[in-house]
């Protein structure tokens, strides 16, 4: 396993959370989609470097939005 990296903190970066298998299944069933249908995030993305992700994981992103307060967004992990 690669060495665990420190989380990059910045005003521009919203909170990134990795979904566990159960949550992932529930999400995909709710929208009736597969992981490849989600918007993507590279596995090398520096905002998730501390999360230890693999291909086909789903990342939940909790954004601060100027119109809705907070909004959640999902991205599927792909390799470069």
């Amino acid at each position: 396993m690669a060495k665990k990296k420190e989380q990059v903190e910045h005003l521009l970066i919203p909170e990134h959370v990795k979904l566990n298998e159960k949550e992932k299944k529930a999400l995909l069933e709710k929208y009736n989609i597969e992981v490849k249908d989600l918007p993507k995030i590279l596995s090398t993305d520096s905002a998730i470097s501390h999360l230890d992700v693999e291909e086909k994981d789903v990342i939940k992103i909790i954004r601060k939005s100027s119109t809705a307060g907070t909004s959640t967004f999902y991205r599927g992990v792909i390799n470069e």
Partner: protein
Amino acid sequence: MKLFKEFEDKLPENILEEVKANLPDKCSESRTRKILEAVYKEYKSSVADPGENVGLVGAESIGEPGTQMTLNTFHFAGVSEMNVTTGLPRLIEILDARKTIKTEITEIFLKKPYNEGKDIKEIAESLKETLFRSFLKEISINIASLQMTIELDEQKIKNAKLTPIKITKILEKSVKSFKFQLEKDKPIINVKSSSKDIALNEIYKLKESIKDIFVTGIKGIKQVLPVKRGSEFMIVTAGTNLKEILKLDFIDTCRTTSNNLYEIEKLFGIEAVRQAIMNEVMKVLDAQGIDIDMRHIMLVSDTMCMSGRLLGINRYGIVKEKPSVLARASFETPIKHIINASLRGEVDSLNSVIENVMLNQPIPVGTGLPGLVTKVK
């Protein structure tokens, strides 16, 4: 309150907060419920419907005020000491996701004791990329002995917190084929070739190239400007090298940003780019006094960041990612796309709008969509 918890999934946070703040002092639970239900009904009716062509509406909403913008952006000098690309050129730059942008700017925020304005000039000056050129007083070449003497400017060296000895060492490191010798108690460096037979023009070449040797500061920072924003001092620089800047210990790494989107993508990830695009576009529009709804810009920046990489809105970016051959061909360079598609044997499943327009079929948008959802056959 329990009631508000119930509506948490249904209404966005901002609206709930607003309702909470504006409730009358004495409001029974049943009345609050009625209010919330009325708000929910209103909210639902204003949400974009499935199949609504939001992209088209967004394009028109940004495009129309964009035409107003062109006229008053041609010259925009003299507002601050630094010249910044604004207006339509900057907007095109952002949306095209250009790799090299006209004016790169970094906004450096400082940590607590440093942002109070003490020594701000010195801090700013220490960031600036300084070449050997700026420490020079005179260079002379002795043709007979094939030697070069460099006279240094002592005051400038002192200001940069360096010594002639350090500079000599930097020179030795970057130029291997010459020997540098500092004269005692004098800021004069004698330069001699390490080998005996040397052409005169090589010394002349050295005389020019030595001026561009990097001495101190951060590479890429061309100009620095300390400014006061609100109650704190910060540094704005022309040219950017975020990676190096973030390594410095007196900098607030949480707020320091640049306007180069690729730099942000590399250091902070795709979600940060999405936010940065929105910020940069809004900055341009606000400066022009143009009011475009934030949601249109959100849509644009979401689209640019969909694939996990930053893509511009042009034929090398998001158009290239489209799965449909006809959609790609309809944008730019149609023959190239059609030839490549036929070579590869690509199939177009006619799922999107533009290819159906070409074939004179109903498009899957608005009222054209339900047929596709329920699979009529």
